[in-house]
């Protein structure tokens, strides 16, 4: 099958890590890696990998709209708001890794198929990619879910100035995502930064208040979900299996990154990249099917 051409807009850590992952894909080919500064670390990495680069930002796509069918936007929410109408006009599918929330949310393990045909897909937040699948399982297997809470702890080093400044948006977006997928109107998201050295891996705990929990169904649902997620995030591990104690359900997962461009402790960033690629590959497969 012929690979589908994708462009990556944003040459920071996320974009560069995404590039390395895409180079391994059977379905995707990175035809253009776009940043602003040719001497940046991400750009020189791309050049060393033999990938075509541009430092023209969004203009690179405007000038050559045929360069790709899918674009990963790894810039910022503010920039994505400007980019989105351009992608739409050019007929390019946008996979949005910023918190701009313009398109429908996607968690590949839950609603990958639903996003096919959308022109703009939002990847929610890194914590959301880790916690929402478990919240969804709770919603699917339990009756009368009263409350769902997700707590993520990430290493301080993996949170740059933009993440820190946008903590409020992270929390509110994650809460909204948990609500949507669990079906429970009462949710809470918490984010901790931990400065320990060596850096800790991302860890996410999901709690739920359920009057009469069906733990058997929950265990089965969680096991299946983890198997599904592992297809695109290989190191998504259950640390505390679903447990009912002190009137609450608790379970904890840990995500280690693959260590491509981002260090392994940045599992929080790795998971959103893996999820974004899963979406793009699904698009690629459906395009291939359409074209016979």
């Amino acid at each position, binding site marked *: 099958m012929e690979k589908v051409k994708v462009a990556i807009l944003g040459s920071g850590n996320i974009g560069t890590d995404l590039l390395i992952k895409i180079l391994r894909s059977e379905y995707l080919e990175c035809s253009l890696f776009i940043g602003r500064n040719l001497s940046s670390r991400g750009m020189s990495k791309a050049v060393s990998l033999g990938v075509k680069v541009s430092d023209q930002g969004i203009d690179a796509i405007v000038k050559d709209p045929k360069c790709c069918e899918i674009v990963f936007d790894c810039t910022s929410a503010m920039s994505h708001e400007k980019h989105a109408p351009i992608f739409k006009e050019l007929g390019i599918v946008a996979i949005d890794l910023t918190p701009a929330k313009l398109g429908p949310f996607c968690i590949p393990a839950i609603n990958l198929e639903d996003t096919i045909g959308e022109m703009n897909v939002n990847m929610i937040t890194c914590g959301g990619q880790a916690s929402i699948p478990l919240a969804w399982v709770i919603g699917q297997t339990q009756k009368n879910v009263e409350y769902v809470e997700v707590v993520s702890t990430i290493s*301080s080093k993996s949170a740059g100035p933009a993440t820190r400044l946008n903590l*409020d948006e992270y929390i509110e977006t994650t809460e909204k995502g948990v609500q949507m997928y669990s079906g429970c109107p009462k949710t809470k998201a*918490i984010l*901790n*930064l*931990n*400065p320990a050295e060596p850096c800790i891996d991302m860890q996410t705990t999901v709690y739920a*208040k359920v009057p009469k929990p069906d733990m058997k169904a929950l265990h089965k649902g969680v096991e299946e979900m983890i198997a599904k997620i592992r297809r695109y995030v290989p190191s998504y591990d259950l640390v*505390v299996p679903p447990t009912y104690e*002190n009137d609450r359900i608790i379970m904890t997962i840990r995500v280690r990154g693959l260590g491509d461009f981002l260090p392994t402790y940045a599992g929080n960033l790795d998971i959103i990249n893996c999820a974004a690629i899963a979406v793009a590959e699904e698009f690629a497969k459906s395009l291939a099917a359409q074209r016979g």
Partner: protein
Amino acid sequence: MKNVIISDATLRDGSHAIAHQLTKENIAEYAKAADKAGIPIVEVGHGNGLGASSVQVGLSLLSDVEMLETARENLTRSKLGIHVIPGFATVRKDLEVAFKLGVDVVRVASHCTEADVTERHISATREHGKEAYGVLMMSHMASKEVLLDEGLKMQSYGAEALIIMDSAGAYLPDDVEDRISHLVANLNIPVGFHAHNNLGMGIANSLTALKAGAQLLDGAARGFGAGAGNAQLEVLVAVLEKMGYHTGIELYPLLDAADLVEKKIMKVVPSISSSSLVSGLAGVFSAFSKHVAAAAKEYGVDPRDIFFELGRRRVVGGQEDKIVEVAMELRDGKVRGAHAE
């Protein structure tokens, strides 16, 4: 005579001690009593502050709105203070509500190395014309150089004071002297100290901070606070006055307020229990104590082993979920109690 500004954490840090189950009557009665005593700042809320009621750190009986409204109605002289941790509370969802309810002092807190998450909360507080303090929690986990760097950030954001919290009750007086004097010498804003009593140093460390140049001190009536409790407020005030400092607080009404807490609010008077002492030695967030006790019971392990293991993993405030994980690992023999043999 030198002035010291006393901030009363009874109705906030004390929440930890009763699993955040303060009632409206508790708040109304104590706020009235504190106000009568002329305590400058009365903090109210969930132990982890605004927007923190959660399964992770404990669900509170009352909502933030109920707590703040009740306190506001009963404070005339004293300022109403709140504690707020970015990552739990957002500006839009939580802080703006608190501004409307009439808080006066907003103490924006972060783990001691993460001050840059406080920029928006401090800015929003200043833009609303409220007093903003920066608070560095678990400060024993950072060197004085790091604390200064983080304090300078908070000062840049508009913090009008920097409060150093010994959240784990892990300091000895020399640690306090070393850090506070460095901060006082290099910051433009006044420095404050918040003690915990795990090693029995609550009052001693507060006085050391003062001698090192601190101008604000936190305390709680009868020491009503997380773990082994805080610096005991009435003792602190009495000692300060004896030493010739001016707090503006009247003794008899203060003692009445403390008696009220003991009779009406606290279930037991805080003491340095074995596990609190271990918590202080291990440098673990004091507010973990109730959660650790519950997990130790649930999984049949020694709470002291949980504390030492949490300390070894350098767990920070807000990471209460680690307690269950560690308790399970101890139960399953994946880790061994460090001091078991």
